[in-house]
């Protein structure tokens, strides 16, 4: 089967997201669910994820400002965020959430601040990369959503 340039580009973007650890196997599970009844399922779920995660991160940021050293509150919010990350296979973000929770457990406020900054950065990068990926997918046309990069 011949792939168009756009299709190759989409496959390549996806492969790099996996190779660089931004995404894990759970993302594939989400993609497998996409079908004729829900042709944009993956993108819809990712969109829900970013709505969810943005809100949770705002909550955490506010909690860190207004409730200094309220580690259990920070942790509860982070647990929810980690759950969301896990559900779509956002692997690097998920790992940073785990890291935050460990640091939180040590009651290290400064460490938490640093970890949170990392998390914000990872969030931004993931969003940008997924947006690019979906944009190319859309341009490439419907056929490519079924394609899997070699070795996946």
């Amino acid at each position, binding site marked *: 089967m011949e792939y168009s340039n756009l299709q190759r580009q989409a496959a390549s973007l996806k492969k790099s997201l996996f190779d660089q650890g931004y995404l894990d196997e759970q993302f594939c*599970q989400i993609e497998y*669910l996409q079908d004729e009844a829900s042709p944009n399922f993956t993108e819809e*779920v990712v969109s829900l994820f970013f709505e969810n995660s943005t809100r949770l991160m705002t909550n955490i940021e506010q909690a860190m400002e207004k409730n200094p050293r309220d580690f259990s509150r920070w942790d509860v919010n982070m647990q929810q965020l980690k759950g*969301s990350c896990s*559900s779509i296979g956002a692997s690097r973000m998920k790992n940073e959430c785990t890291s935050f929770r460990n640091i939180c457990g040590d009651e290290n406020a400064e460490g938490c601040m640093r970890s949170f900054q990392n998390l914000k950065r990872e969030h931004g990068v993931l969003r940008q990369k997924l947006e690019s990926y979906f944009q190319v997918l859309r341009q490439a046309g419907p056929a490519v959503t079924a394609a899997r990069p070699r070795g996946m």
Partner: protein
Amino acid sequence: MAAAAAPSVSPSPAPAPAPKVASPKAGDRKVVPVDAVEVEVELKLELEEKHVLAVDDSSVDRAVIAKILRSSKYRVTTVESATRALELLALGLLPDVNMIITDYWMPGMTGYELLKHVKESSELREIPVVIMSSENVPNRITRCLEEGAEDFLLKPVRPSDVSRLCSRIR
């Protein structure tokens, strides 16, 4: 056919007999109501999709679990809290739920508390309840199973996890 009554001007001494329903004649089809109802119910169960109630405070997880279930041809109702789930069940708005699948940890009422409420209710206790959790805590799993949970799934939930529940749905 009722016997035609001639209009009478004066009241009769005895009440006129009620019009008679014609008794079945040879060749008439007999109505057998009980069997017909049973057959209808059986057909309904076969043709209707099984109905799953999915409870999770995360919109992402609700979307995923609903899609997994719908891809397996289940009818799905999603709610974002255990309280809401119980409300709908108590109001009789979900009379035909075949299974409840719920997140363990949710703000307000937890999935564990929902499980307990369901199992303590004479109307609801037969409904299998499956708990989902992102944390692998053996005590938690044991407690849920002891309380009557049908199964315990670790998140993130995948299609293969759900397909093994299919046989449990009554």
